[in-house]
């Protein structure tokens, strides 16, 4: 469903992504991990062309995201994106955050958009927060709203860019619960995270990145029990040490 084929990307003379390839199947949950600065976040932002690539191809369900002339807004609308810092629109209420894309991009009626938004807020347990502004919500609540906002577009896949790393520890699980639920329902997911517990529970495969390269792609069990590369062993021993 998502095919990343040998992509390269530079920030000026810094080589962020070096020949990365990865395929994600429909309904698959993939966790991408690695030390900071390894290019994970950049890679995931390339999938919906928020970051352009310098060479290589990314194809999402028959659509070449990297080709010139591709209607990017339409592709992006079909890939849900959740950011580390939530990025809810601060000048809109919670429900308006969920309605904007539906109305402006999918051309749904206000009523249809509101209905969809309400049912999604209910699903993430925030039906009573609909009329508030994002700043009145806790981090965990904001991130759940952000997930609902992405789901409101009926995406075919969801990308998560370190969804819990800006959260206070006690709020992490409420966000992970929503994500686990999504995974169980069969959503195709690419998740950049350090939550190894989450990876163990729902990921089919784990991708390990280091210094802009995909070093290892392995089944979750194999990755945790017997990582192939020394770099991955070292990373795991640090992150699972306590």
């Amino acid at each position: 469903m998502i095919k990343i084929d040998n992509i390269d990307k530079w920030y000026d003379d810094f080589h962020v992504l070096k020949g990365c390839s990865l395929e994600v199947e429909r309904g698959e949950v993939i966790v991408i991990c690695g030390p900071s600065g390894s290019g994970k976040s950049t890679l995931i932002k390339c999938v919906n062309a928020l970051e352009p690539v310098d060479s290589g191809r990314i194809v999402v369900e028959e659509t070449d995201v990297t080709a010139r002339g591709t209607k990017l807004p339409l592709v992006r609308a079909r890939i849900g994106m959740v950011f580390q810092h939530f990025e809810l629109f601060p000048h809109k209420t919670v429900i308006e955050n969920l309605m904007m894309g539906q109305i402006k991009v999918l051309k749904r009626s206000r009523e249809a958009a509101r209905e969809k938004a309400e049912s999604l807020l209910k699903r993430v347990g925030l039906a009573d927060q609909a009329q508030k502004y994002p700043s009145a919500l806790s981090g965990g609540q904001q991130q759940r709203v952000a997930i609902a906002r992405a789901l409101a577009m009926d995406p075919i896949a969801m990308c998560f860019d370190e969804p819990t790393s800006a959260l206070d520890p006690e709020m992490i699980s409420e966000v992970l619960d929503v994500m686990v639920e999504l995974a169980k329902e069969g959503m195709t997911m690419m998740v950049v995270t350090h939550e190894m517990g989450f990876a163990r529970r729902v990921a089919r495969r784990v991708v390990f990145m280091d210094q802009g390269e995909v070093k290892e792609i392995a089944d979750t069990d194999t990755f945790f029990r017997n990582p192939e590369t020394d770099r991955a062993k070292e990373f795991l021993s640090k992150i699972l040490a306590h």
Partner: protein
Amino acid sequence: MGDFDFQVIIESLPFLFDGLLISFQLTFLALIAGLAWGTILAVMRIWGPAPLRWFSAVYVNIFRSIPLILVIFWFYFLVPLLIGRPVGNFTSALIAFSLFEAAYYAEIMRAGLNSVSRGQVYAGLAIGLSPRQNLQYVILPQAFRNMIPVLLTQAIILFQDTSLVYVVALSDFMTSASVVAKVEGRLAEMYLFAALVYFVICFSGSLLVKHLQKKKVA
């Protein structure tokens, strides 16, 4: 104070009030036009192709380098020449103020647009908004909100600056006050009164700005 004649102020109030209305109209209309054109200039400066970026930069720098009074004077003569018929001093002053203020609003809006984080830009694009929709629904509303106190401060300056239209004999509040002052020979009373009116209006404006700033911090 015994020689002060306050009667002259009371008697000329209707005349002065008409002048004040002209000042307000000029401020309000120039504010709207200047803000709109200034926003376009700021967008061109940040996202435009090279020629537009260049144009915007040159425009802003030129207008910020010449005194407003000269601009008002020029347009008084220039606009009728350009369109081939007289337009009246209000219209020519309005055009001058709008174009001049746009240079300042452009810089304020540029700061405002830059104050919107990259993450917000990503978030708008990620739900499928086109770059233009993203500007309209996500970036500009936040830029305006962040800049409201500065925009208001600039509006207060604009209101004070409208007193410069005396050079094209437009009867705004200041010009009206000085007409009364000269005709009645009551310079001290009229100029004191004019100062008081400007002070009350502008000071209320800055109190509002302070209030808004405090609200923003909270």
